[in-house]
């Protein structure tokens, strides 16, 4: 109780029935809003993609096909539920929920608006404000890996298994860069709580982390989170041309629906997280309208979130899929060193100007050394004295042997 009172002003005057009701209603409203947003997001994605590809997209149900998602959902629920004979039944049934629950929990830490007063109680428009804040988001994205990995393994089928192996490697790799950029934000804020992160950015656009930290952490975060979501151009986990449908190939009916729901819910949640961390969350210009001042932060939040949701759709329409080795190169050789270096520079500047410049010089030196190492390594892979055949080329046994024996002879 003591802990909670520090975190959320609603508990300041003890736990009365009204407080419990308000907290429960806040939770239910948050859940309903997220569900509604997912329905609209799926429709929006299909419509926007269609438009970009000169198609019509869903048109049948409701005005502009708005009810298409509901119709699809209904169809999925009444379809026959299949469990493959080779499947590991318990894990197979568990996996969809391991995808869905992290998406739901992460949204709980996003501040959607300012504080409103309901029946004399100050209510923050945020389901929960735990003291560990953004770390909860990292933990949940760690858990959501299991949804994909276990689904792929439990299906007892070849392509889903390959997808699961890809997913586990990809999501772990990008989590490192993700964590490092979050550390940069946390360093600048001095707090883990999302409420404080938003409060620190509330005084105008120049205080937004997007600008205050330099644009680099934002860009790294955006790329890493796209990879974490398995969205195009990083969707090697469900690459249709290679792996049929990826980890959910064997899933049907309601369980497939849960995966589908989780994917779009994650997209919305992560858009909201980006807005919270880098664009000031609900911060924005509030006109002096009596009784309606609380609406504007929510509007600002919505506008920013929809912008990012749209850019995910745009990525999908505009960018070709990364090859798996390119994905790993980008993650390990570019994003992780970049985010680590930038974190050190920001930390240096937070202490003292001179320390910042010193750090910057050190980072540039380290970057030069690293890129030199990478170049040497790549030359060994692809150049004249290559040990391995070019990427995508099947090695002939004789050639590999010759390459190795020649090398040993040197």
């Amino acid at each position, binding site marked *: 109780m*003591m*802990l909670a009172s*520090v*975190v959320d002003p609603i508990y300041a005057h003890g736990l009365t029935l009204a407080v419990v009701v308000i907290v429960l209603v806040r939770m239910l409203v948050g859940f309903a809003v997220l569900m509604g947003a997912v329905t609209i997001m799926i429709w929006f994605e299909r419509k926007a993609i269609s438009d970009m590809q000169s198609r019509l997209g869903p048109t049948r149900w409701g005005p502009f096909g708005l009810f298409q998602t509901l119709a699809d959902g209904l169809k999925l629920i009444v379809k026959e539920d299949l469990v493959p004979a080779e499947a*590991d039944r*318990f*894990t197979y049934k568990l996996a969809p929920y391991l995808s869905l629950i992290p998406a739901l929990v992460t949204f709980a830490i996003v501040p959607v608006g300012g504080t409103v007063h309901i029946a004399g109680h100050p209510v923050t428009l945020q389901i929960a404000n*735990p*003291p*560990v804040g953004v*770390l*909860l988001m*990292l*933990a949940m*994205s*760690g*858990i959501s*890996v*299991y949804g994909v*990995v*276990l689904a792929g*393994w439990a299906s007892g089928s070849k392509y889903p*298994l390959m997808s*699961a*192996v890809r997913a*586990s*490697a990809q*999501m*772990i790799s990008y*989590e490192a860069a993700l*964590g490092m950029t979050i550390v940069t934000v946390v360093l600048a804020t*001095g*707090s*883990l*709580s999302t409420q404080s992160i938003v409060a620190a950015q509330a005084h105008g656009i120049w205080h937004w982390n997007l600008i205050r930290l330099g644009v680099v952490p934002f860009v790294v975060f955006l790329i890493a989170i796209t990879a974490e979501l398995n969205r195009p151009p990083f969707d090697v986990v469900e690459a249709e041309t290679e792996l049929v449908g990826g980890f959910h190939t064997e899933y049907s009916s309601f369980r497939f629906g849960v995966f589908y729901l989780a994917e779009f819910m994650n997209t919305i949640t992560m858009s909201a997280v980006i807005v919270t961390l880098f664009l000031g969350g609900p911060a924005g210009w509030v006109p002096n309208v009596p009784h309606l001042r609380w609406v504007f932060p929510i509007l600002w939040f919505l506008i920013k979130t929809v912008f990012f949701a749209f850019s995910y759709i745009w990525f999908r329409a505009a960018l070709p899929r990364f090859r798996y080795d390119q994905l790993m190169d980008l993650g390990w050789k570019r994003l992780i060193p970049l985010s680590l270096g930038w974190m050190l520079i920001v930390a240096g500047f937070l202490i003292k100007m001179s320390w910042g410049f010193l750090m910057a010089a050190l980072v540039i030196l380290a970057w030069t050394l690293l890129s030199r190492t990478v170049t040497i390594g790549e030359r060994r892979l692809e150049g004249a004295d290559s040990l391995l055949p070019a990427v995508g080329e099947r090695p002939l*046994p*004789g050639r*590999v*042997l010759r390459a*190795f*024996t020649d090398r040993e002879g040197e």
Partner: protein
Amino acid sequence: MIGAAYAIPDILAFVVAALMILAGAIGVLAVRNPVHAALSLILTLFGVAVAFVAQSADFLAVVQIIVYAGAIVVLFLFVIMFLGVDRTDPVRVEPLVGQRALAGVGVVVTIGGLVALLASSHWVTGAIAVSTSGHPTPGGAGNVRAVGTAVFTTYLFAFEATAALLIIAVVGAVLLARRERRMDREGEA
């Protein structure tokens, strides 16, 4: 002294956490399928995280989930799937001579040590902050600060040494793995 610190929610949290930890730990040993064993391990890790929260060490709890559940066990799963050892392993053969007898001795020594520790120290009760004589660990930002100060001042050497050790282990593993693959290729051809 400790008994007075009990409150119903504390006991409930402790019982739930302890049951999760125990069920998971027994599962790791009893389940035959390696993937199920890894899942049981996750259950244990979550139980420990719950226990951390009950001791108001929120930061540790989340880090526990991020590092262990979010990264390490995923890598376990990755290896299990990648090497395709997702079926039962024969346990009848003894890879090292006298392994079982030694394991038995190890178990006895460990249990004896634990009992000796418990006899001279506090029992695990679920009561908050037994080791800090009743003062709860500071919550929120103070929690992170407490951990950070401990790690980067008192235990700095141990911390850095661990980091160096991990790097050495990774480099060593890469070196070994690469050499092995070369020999395989040559042997094949």
